[in-house]
């Protein structure tokens, strides 16, 4: 495969196919995701949004039946190259999962775990600072500051998800993948997370999967519409929501399929 010319694409995917045993979950997807933007993946349930997202930090490696083919590059480097260590990749590409999955440890330890294993803090004070900053960014600081040592699993579902966001950003990733991060949040927390995404966009490349058209419209600059494993349309968010080219996109955003 010939090298991608250096555009400002942070992530570029070419001819990506994903198979789970017999299921062909992603079919020939080509996409270029720009740095310092928010890109939204939308599409009906089961169309492969999560699967594609998990290709970007190679979380699919952990599923035995999953086979990924094609070419995915971050900063022009093939992330499926044999020389790439997925652990190093995942430190660079953080992820927030669809279901909140805090560690059964204290709130503090949840956030501090990533920085600790990557050696991002030289001492306790620095670690404390990272934890506080991350929790503040994730809009959880006010609720959590008095109970940092109580278990993260004791938080409400929405608080747990924000804890997971704090955990993901604590390792200072360059790319943040978010799989429906707001599906368990109330409108106020959602607004806070959206604000956070706006904030993160200034320095990171954010990819967000969402089922909420409004959310996609509010936070993203680019939107990709997936349907039955194919990338149907990928364009500026404004264009997708006002003047989509593909009839399937139009019927999805106007609520006729999905």
């Amino acid at each position: 495969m010939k090298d991608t010319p250096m555009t400002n694409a942070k992530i570029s995917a070419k001819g990506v196919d994903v198979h789970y045993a017999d299921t062909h979950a992603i079919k020939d997807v080509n996409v270029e995701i720009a740095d310092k933007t928010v890109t939204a993946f939308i599409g009906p349930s089961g169309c492969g949004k999560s699967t594609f997202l998990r290709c970007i930090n190679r979380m699919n490696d952990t599923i035995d039946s999953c086979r990924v083919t094609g070419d995915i590059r971050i900063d022009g480097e093939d992330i499926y190259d044999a020389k790439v260590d997925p652990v190093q990749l995942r430190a660079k590409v953080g992820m927030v999962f669809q279901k909140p999955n805090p560690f059964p440890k204290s709130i503090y330890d949840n956030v501090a775990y990533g920085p600790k294993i990557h050696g991002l803090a030289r001492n306790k004070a620095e670690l404390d600072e990272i934890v506080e900053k991350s929790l503040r960014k994730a809009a959880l600081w006010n609720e959590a500051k008095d109970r940092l040592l109580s278990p993260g699993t004791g938080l409400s579902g929405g608080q747990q998800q924000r804890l997971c966001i704090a955990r993901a950003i604590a390792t200072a990733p360059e790319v943040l993948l978010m799989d429906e991060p707001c599906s368990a949040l109330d409108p106020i927390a959602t607004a806070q997370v959206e604000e956070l995404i706006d904030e993160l966009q200034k320095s990171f490349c954010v990819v967000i999967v969402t089922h909420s058209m409004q959310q996609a419209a509010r936070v993203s600059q680019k939107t990709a519409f997936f349907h039955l494993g194919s990338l149907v349309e990928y364009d500026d968010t404004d264009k997708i929501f006002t003047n989509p080219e593909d009839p399937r996109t139009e019927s999805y955003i106007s609520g006729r399929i999905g």
Partner: protein
Amino acid sequence: MTHKSLLTADARIKKRNAAEARFKAYGLGAIIIAMLALSLLLTSVVSTGSSAFKQTYATVSVPLTEAKLDKSGTRDLAVMKKVTTIGYTSLLRDGMVAAVEELGLDTTLSAKDIGGMLSKEAAATVRNRVLANPDIVGTSVMFKLLTNGRIDGYFKGRVTMESAALDGNTSPEELQLAQELADAGVIATTFNWAFLTAPDASDQRPEAAGLGVAILGSLYMMIIVLVLALPIGVAASIYLEEFAPKNRWTDVIEVNISNLAAVPSIVYGILGLAIFINFMEFNQSSPMVGGLVLTLMTLPTIIISTRASLKSVPPSIRDAALGVGASKMQSVFHHVLPLAAPGILTGTIIGLAQALGETAPLLLIGMVAFVREYPAAYTADAGLFGEASTALPVQVFNWTQRADPGFVERASGAIITLLIFLLIMNAIAIFLRRKFERRW
């Protein structure tokens, strides 16, 4: 449309409720039967065995005549050792007769029979004391000595006047005299520490038999099993569950481990005999061989329970750890293993408990031998855990084989001891599980 009242149950609901009530009744019935069987077992064991924890002793003054014990008068141990227990028996007889006469008790028994009221073990007790401290020769010393098994049985209700009349080893007169001595305070039944500390005794001396060697042997074997089976089992499980590729080979291994868990334990005994004794030439009857055999037997149990508890850790936790850039190893050791620990511990302790109660393989490797010496943990000759020993369950088996009814009581007492150890181990398992789970 007709209106259905909620206050009357319809036929379908009634049928469903009846089925549920029946099911609950079956369940309750099963539990009641199980509890009855358990309490029956416990009552029978405790009622025959609890008396093993009491023992009848006679406290008598024994004249340690110099003319008998140390003719040379030099207190030279080498010379004094030439006097066997037979030499001491007459002194004990004199002591007993003197005690009877002092109390002015009337008896038709001969001096030999009065002396015979003490256990054959008593002479050895006195001899050991004398050899340990030769200076007491020439004085009269008070000894607390075992009475014979029949008298002990009489005070525990096992032997009666009627049964004594038919018994060649005792007579009603002897029991009569024992009763009078007991009334005078010479004979008394007290708690039997020796049962837990003394070694086994020969067929004629159930009153002297103890579990000391067996407990020590079992302890050594448990140490070996714990030290070998826990790390090997846990490491194997972690590898198989978290790292090994899922292919035909790992399937074959998995099936084999499950099969090994179901292999009759005696087969492990044959294996141990062939490998550890015949091929590797470890000492027969040694806790080392026993421990290795039990380790092989316990490994599948530990592996299966460890894998089950690793499996029960939600995959989302692994995803979370990998997602923040932890390596596979970090995700396992920082997150999965701590969550699986209570299950692993429980499985290990259950495996240990199983090993503690295992008899058949130990019989094959010779741990059924009659051992009176406490095995040392290490000697230069025999190596680590290399000295001959027995084990608790084997001791039970051994004692039930013996003719003297005194051993029935001992065997039940040993079962009680074994059950208490198992109870303690299970309590530890529950405690550890609670402690680890309470954290979150």
